[in-house]
């Protein structure tokens, strides 16, 4: 039986709901030995800022129970060299490419969106708002509805492409942020970014990360991510992209049942670099075996009570 695995994010049609998560998939090329990138719904490249960033000093990663902490410090080549050096390679990958952007100020986000808008081979923008707003004393844009909305607004204004706002889970009520960016013109929201965590090496008496705190990812955070996707899907009308600990096909189904239109695979790529491609095949098989005509039937299908 033929099944339709495609999903839509705004006007943008994806062959299937399986995407990769920013910062966990490099620029895609690293994974070409293990995955046919053109078979994925889309890939999200690592976060790009206006100026190059060296990132944090080591150690930058440490393992935790069913998870990992990272404090990469958003190392990237900067928009200039990204467009000049990386995009030509990326265009050759034959994948739907989402570019993830980050900034210290509204102006940063605005300029990044503007610079990227006439660059070919980009399907959509994803906006990382879990970054400190330097002008506002370092409070993350993503923790305040009005700041988050402003970012969504300026990016949406500059960009002719779908704009996905990536939400931070380190907030009291994530639905407030989601509604704010929806009203401000976001095409979709993706969640969750990492939870803030910490680990200490008791032998040295120092934090295990040079940056002291870092972002927690992996299966450990899946229940929190799933709950937030469920809450946000009920609160907004725009598509929700689920992220957080997704490793198995069962995880993918859970997130879609909770209301996700698509999902992103992050840390799992490190454990099994072929996983994203395997999930595309697995999802098609699952839909056939369960007599589903379309992947969209799963979205929000969880039954309460």
């Amino acid at each position, binding site marked *: 039986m033929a099944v339709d695995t495609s999903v839509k994010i705004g006007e943008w049609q994806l062959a299937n709901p399986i995407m990769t998560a920013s910062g*966990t998939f490099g620029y895609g090329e690293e994974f070409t030995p293990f995955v046919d990138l053109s078979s994925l719904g889309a890939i999200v490249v*690592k976060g790009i800022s206006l*100026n*190059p960033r*060296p990132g944090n000093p080591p*150690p930058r990663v440490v*393992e935790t129970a069913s*998870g990992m902490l990272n404090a990469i410090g958003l190392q990237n080549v900067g928009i200039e060299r990204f467009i000049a050096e990386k995009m030509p390679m990326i265009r050759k990958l034959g994948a739907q490419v989402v570019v993830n952007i980050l900034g210290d100020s509204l102006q940063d986000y605005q300029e990044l969106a503007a610079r990227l808008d006439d660059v070919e081979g980009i399907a959509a923008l994803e906006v990382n708002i879990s970054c400190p707003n330097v002008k506002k004393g370092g409070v993350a844009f993503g923790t305040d509805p009005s700041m988050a909305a402003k970012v969504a607004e300026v990016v949406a204004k500059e960009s002719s492409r779908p704009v996905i706002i990536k939400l931070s889970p380190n907030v009291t009520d994530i639905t407030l942020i989601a509604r704010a960016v929806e009203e401000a013109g976001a095409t979709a929201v993706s969640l969750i970014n990492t939870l803030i965590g910490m680990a200490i090496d008791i032998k040295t008496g120092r934090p295990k990360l040079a940056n002291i705190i870092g972002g927690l990812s992996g299966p450990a955070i899946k229940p929190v991510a799933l709950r937030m996707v469920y809450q946000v899907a009920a609160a907004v009308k725009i598509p929700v992209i689920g992220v957080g600990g997704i490793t198995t096909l069962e995880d993918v189904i859970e997130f879609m049942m909770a209301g996700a239109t698509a999902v992103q695979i992050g840390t799992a790529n490190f*454990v099994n670099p072929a996983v994203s491609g395997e999930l595309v095949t697995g999802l098609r098989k699952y839909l056939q075996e369960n007599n589903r005509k379309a992947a969209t039937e799963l979205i929000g299908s969880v039954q309460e009570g």
Partner: protein
Amino acid sequence: MQYLENGQILENVAVGPDSWRMEIHAPKVVGAAQPGQFVMVSVGHETTDPLLRRPLSIHQAQSDVLTLLYRIVGKGTKLMSIMKKGEEISLLGPLGKGFDVQPTPHHCLVGGGLGVAPLLFLASQIKQRFPDSKLSILLGGRSRDELLVLEDYQQVAPVFLATDDGSQGMHGLVTDLLAKEIDGPATIYSCGPTPMMKGVAALARQRNWPCQVSLETMMACGMGACLGCTVQRAGIAENEEQKYVHVCKDGPVFEAGEIWL
């Protein structure tokens, strides 16, 4: 070329205190392996704790058989040690940039602790490619217990030993041994604890020996995707974001002068 290969365990035995050797049938990985490269090993059992693969150097790679030499330091290596002959183990590799072997009058391999792991594969290949040039292997350890699988090395080349406690070979550090045993032009290939490699690199600088070192850092992906395995580049990088190099991709083997040890 890198592969994701399910190898079959041919042998998994203790070769010293907390030290094990695993032989795996893995034709694809072996076919592409170069000395100094490593593999990311899944410690398996389908659990998510430990979550990440573990980086292990390629100890030997011959006729479809990959050999790993590992020390039990935590959960992952403990789980590896209870894997049984016949079981499958998932390997990702070969990964990274290995040793750069060029003609030289004297190839000198210097290892300490478990840093010895990659040197066997390196020694075998040097002997094969440059049968006529001199080849020496210097190994150090805290005590004789730490000097593992010596026979295997001795079969390839003359081996010089040093132990901190004098329980075997010279009483002292492997760097002292290096200073004592080696003179004249040579190329140094070194791996082991950072303090040891610092000493080796310093001596090499004095004697104008080209020196390559193999580094270890925490790693999440092992393939250049997570940017987690940084060490700082020596000197000033022309581009801000080139301040750091990545051990899994730019290394694990570096010219000693290239990075801050």
